[in-house]
């Protein structure tokens, strides 16, 4: 009796399922179909990564052939004479990213100490933490717009006051906006790392009569040093690839930046500016090669950061 009920119910199920599928597929094949679908999806992801890398290489071939290694040490970028050297953009990217890191570091570190040590578990700390993490989601084009309207005039006034070229846009403006953008990100990584310091260690220090400053200085920070370093690397990966905000405030000139106040271009911003205007194959291919370089650099930096973070969280646990 039970047997027959189960059979009828499963028959009804099949009926329903085949109605839903319209094309009746035999249950045995459905199983296989499902396996193929999920395996296929994973393979799609693997294929995308492979395809990104190979497409970038294939399409930058004309430029690699034409310029070879001199592509990254030549500082002339001139579409009219078809001479392409990427040094100004490499310099612009490295300069703005490292400056941004330098500017943001004290801020992100203190906010993560504040949240991770002083405000751990408190209501105010929770609110502040959520707010900062939300700010990491604000689209970069909006940061760029704000930078252009508010920050650039400020930088211009400052440059005027100290007798520097008063463009406003340039390396300094780009570094400042980048710094503002990476603070939420690196603060949340650093906070995470700091909260993973074992409580036993901190409590032992407190029991010995250490002040809070001494605990942070001699226990928490040394314990999480490699994690903080990884956080810096991950923020650097962010800053290197950041496009829109930088494009809007850096001034977009294809020459080697000579000072903090001079205009320039980063690897990402030159692609954003010239990609749709590139008419010759060589020009387009040079831009794609810059994209390839950017891909490789961010990959290496992110990869090292991830390895450190992983080793770190394992050792703490």
């Amino acid at each position: 009796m039970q047997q027959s009920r189960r059979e009828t119910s499963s028959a009804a199920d099949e009926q329903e399922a085949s109605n839903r599928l319209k094309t009746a597929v035999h249950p045995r094949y459905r199983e296989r179909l499902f396996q193929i679908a999920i395996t296929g999806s994973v393979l799609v992801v693997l294929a995308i990564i492979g395809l990104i890398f190979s497409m970038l290489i294939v399409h930058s071939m004309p430029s690699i052939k034409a310029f070879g290694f001199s592509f990254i040490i030549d500082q002339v970028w001139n579409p009219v004479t078809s001479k392409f050297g990427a040094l100004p953009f490499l310099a612009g990217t490295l300069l703005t990213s490292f400056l941004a890191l330098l500017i943001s570091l004290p801020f992100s570190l203190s906010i993560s100490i504040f949240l991770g040590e002083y405000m751990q578990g408190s209501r105010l700390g929770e609110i502040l933490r959520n707010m900062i993490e939300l700010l990491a989601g604000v689209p970069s084009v909006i940061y760029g717009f704000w930078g252009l309207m508010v920050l650039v005039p400020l930088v211009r006034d400052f440059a005027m006051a100290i007798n520097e070229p008063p463009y406003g846009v340039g390396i300094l403006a780009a570094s400042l906006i980048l710094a503002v953008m990476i603070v939420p990100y690196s603060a949340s990584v650093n906070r995470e790392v700091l909260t993973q310091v074992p409580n036993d260690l901190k409590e032992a220090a407190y029991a010995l009569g250490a002040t809070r400053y001494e605990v942070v200085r001699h226990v928490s920070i040394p314990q999480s040093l490699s994690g903080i370093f990884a956080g810096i690397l991950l923020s650097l990966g962010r800053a290197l690839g950041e496009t829109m905000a930088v494009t809007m405030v850096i001034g977009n000139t294809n020459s080697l930046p000579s000072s903090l106040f001079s205009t320039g271009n980063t690897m990402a911003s030159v692609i954003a500016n010239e990609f749709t205007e590139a008419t010759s194959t060589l020009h387009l291919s040079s831009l794609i090669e810059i994209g390839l370089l950017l891909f490789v650099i961010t990959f290496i930096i992110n990869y090292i950061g991830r390895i450190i973070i992983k080793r770190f969280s394992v050792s703490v646990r």
Partner: protein
Amino acid sequence: MNEIGLNIRKLKNKTFTVVIALFTILTALPLIFIIYYVFRQGIAAINWQFFITLPKPVGESGGGIANALLGTVLIVLVASVMAVPIGIMAGVYMSENPDNRISRSARLAVEVLNGVPSIVIGIFAYLVVVIPTGGFSSFSGSFALAVMMLPLIIRTTEETLQRVPKALKESALALGAPYYRVIFKVVIPSGLSGIINGVMLAVARVTGETAPLLFTAFGNPYLNWNISKPMANLPLLIFNYATSPYKNWHRLAWGASLILIIFVLLLNITSRLAIKKWKIRF
């Protein structure tokens, strides 16, 4: 002597606290100021016309961003249609076979993909979609955004499904249910909140992305429903109008920024609250 030493240590501690608090306030201020500024400028720009009309040419005041609003919705929708099923299925595979070679390399691929600069994804979409199809199109933009959504969806799906207790799955299998049905009727529903959360975060992340759309969706001053043609969208409109010298276009860009920020923040906040409320507990 000891007394003095103690006092110095106390003083150091106090100074440190003050410095940390000061820097925290200094950090929070510009960030809050940015949000405040966008709200102030944006609210002044928004009225009914703003939502239902097209941008006016230079020199005329007024106009709206109907084309960009429609474009962003369509582009993100098409991107989600592509990325969500593939992302969830890949996540299912990786949580079901956590230790085989495919899953391990896929995990690396997901991490790499997550770190690829968005402009490089734009180049990729240009090379594999725009060139073969012969022109800029909204679809190529959706493709680029879909590639950016994948890592987030896959990672959250995998992490959530791994937390679904084995016993649940085993009891369903013991009842004689076929494997695919166990996945669809037991495993995925148990982890649904986490998966939806991942999808929301992915949508929030790509809605504001500008760089991958520069040479894919390209932008369009007119209203367009056809995904094989260039299409306007909010981030690109903000970029183009913000860098133009015209006051009226700046006004439109501020309004568009406000809409974008509200949308992205709402999605983020909802998913945060949702994850607290629906977190899987077994």
